[in-house]
């Protein structure tokens, strides 16, 4: 059993040569569980944690084909905000943001959640009309949001180029002060450790290769570590959701695309907040380590390769230089891609399926990191009660049949 992290344990380990217990045990799967969660990303681990903590279901396995947090959770640019346009979406992301605000204490794990604020820039009159509309919708939904003009932006971020001669001059922005960033692997390890302490088995290096369905009911999974049975299975595998759906004979309204990001060498603090622009398509923040974290867009083609085209990276770099000419000589350190599961309406699917006992939580696409605790929370309740959590109801997969889409594409003004 792991000890609680505290000032005392930090001091003790510091003086005794960093003698820490392993955060989660390396274990082999049992033959049967009450619930299996497929995918050990942030969302899957959060689901397991809330199943154990709030739903009284501790006999849970999280099955991960690689290592926990090695998927999009560990590859994303960690921007967190809740200023979405649609009521359904902003309620869900705001639910998540409220959980973020207490998550380090709740998990006894510092996830380095830093509410440094998020600017979404506007570069045209239409951009500004959309921003005003979204900010008004946010305020009506109890989400903190303000519209700021170019002068205020310049005051807050002196290095940004607000010149009228810019190719796409900055006219203003929406600002959410409660938004920010967090430590990507921190949230995965925090949930994993806390779930494991509540009895959840976290099984790494274990790929699900088939989902067993009998007479319309899910029975279990075949994995590279043998067969594991369960009456209820939650699939939270992001870019590979269509692959897992196919194992159960299902199809999804999802396509997988590469999404790329890159970081610079570390430098002294120069950017204290998060800046995003959908119009020129780039977003940037500076990590606590000092490197600039820059996100690009998706490639239009389908891919499972975890890498994308150079022109996409070039485009994001150009956009960032347009906003911050001061970065023109910064050297880039690393670049990578993740596979994101894109839904037609840019909103997730949190839903039961036509196979009894099989639930999917996917379609978060380019923007699910911010939702991690909220997504796990509503999905855990959905699985435990076999009934959608009220916040998850609008995200039923049937919306593609009924037409009740939640059109966040463009509506939120930004991709992430």
């Amino acid at each position: 059993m792991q000890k609680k992290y505290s000032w005392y344990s930090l001091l003790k380990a510091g003086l005794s040569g960093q003698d820490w217990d392993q955060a989660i045990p390396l274990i082999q799967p049992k033959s049967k569980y009450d619930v299996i969660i497929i995918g050990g990303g942030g969302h899957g681990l959060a689901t397991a944690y809330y199943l154990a903590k709030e739903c009284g279901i501790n006999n849970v396995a999280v099955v991960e084909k690689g290592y926990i947090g090695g998927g999009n959770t560990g590859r994303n640019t960690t921007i967190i905000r809740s200023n979405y346009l649609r009521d359904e979406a902003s309620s869900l992301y705001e639910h998540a943001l409220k959980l973020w605000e207490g998550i380090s204490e709740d998990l006894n794990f510092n996830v380095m959640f830093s509410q440094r604020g998020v600017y979404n820039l506007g570069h045209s009159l239409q951009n500004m009309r959309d921003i005003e509309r979204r900010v008004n919708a946010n305020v009506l939904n109890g989400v903190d949001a303000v519209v700021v003009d170019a002068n205020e932006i310049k005051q807050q971020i002196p290095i940004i180029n607000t010149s009228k001669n810019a190719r796409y001059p900055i006219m203003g922005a929406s600002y959410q002060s409660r938004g920010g960033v967090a430590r990507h692997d921190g949230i995965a390890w925090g949930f994993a450790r806390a779930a494991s302490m509540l009895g959840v088995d976290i099984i790494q290096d274990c790929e699900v290769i088939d989902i067993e369905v009998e007479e319309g009911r899910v029975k279990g999974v075949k994995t590279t570590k043998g067969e594991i049975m369960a009456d209820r299975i939650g699939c939270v595998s992001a870019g590979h959701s269509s692959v897992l759906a196919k194992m159960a004979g299902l199809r999804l309204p999802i396509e997988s695309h590469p999404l790329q990001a890159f970081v610079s060498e570390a430098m002294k603090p120069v950017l204290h907040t998060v800046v995003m622009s959908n119009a020129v398509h780039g977003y940037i923040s500076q990590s606590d380590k000092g490197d600039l974290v820059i996100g690009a867009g998706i490639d239009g083609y389908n891919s499972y390769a975890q890498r994308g085209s150079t022109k996409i990276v070039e485009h994001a770099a150009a956009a960032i230089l347009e906003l911050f000419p001061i970065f023109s000589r910064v050297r880039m350190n690393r670049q990578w891609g993740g596979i994101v599961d894109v839904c037609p309406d840019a909103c997730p699917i949190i839903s039961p399926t036509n196979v009894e006992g099989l639930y999917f939580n996917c379609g978060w696409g380019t923007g699910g990191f911010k939702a991690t605790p909220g997504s796990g929370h509503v999905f855990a309740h959905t699985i435990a009660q076999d009934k959608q959590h009220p916040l998850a109801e609008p995200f039923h997969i049937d919306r593609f049949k009924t037409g009740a889409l939640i059109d966040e594409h463009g509506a939120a003004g930004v991709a992430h």
Partner: protein
Amino acid sequence: MLLIHCPYCKESRDQSEFSPAGEAFIARPKSPEGISDEEWADYVFYRTNHKGNHWEQWVHSNGCRKYFLVERSTISHQILQVAPFGARNSETEL
């Protein structure tokens, strides 16, 4: 970066001249008014999203501006073959 052979221009050109245009062989239902909501949803929104060799459409947007078919691996990005539209109507047809 992909090097794509346009079956109309009969030249292999840099990917930046082309735009991807989605999964191939999705045929519009012949009588939309006669099908169920499920079938319509499947046509409009549901996709195969295949991991492996995948038939898709590309358009030579900065060239001849014609659409054509490409079989490409979604794992390695390797292009296996290209074909003009109409050369085939399904994955299995020759």
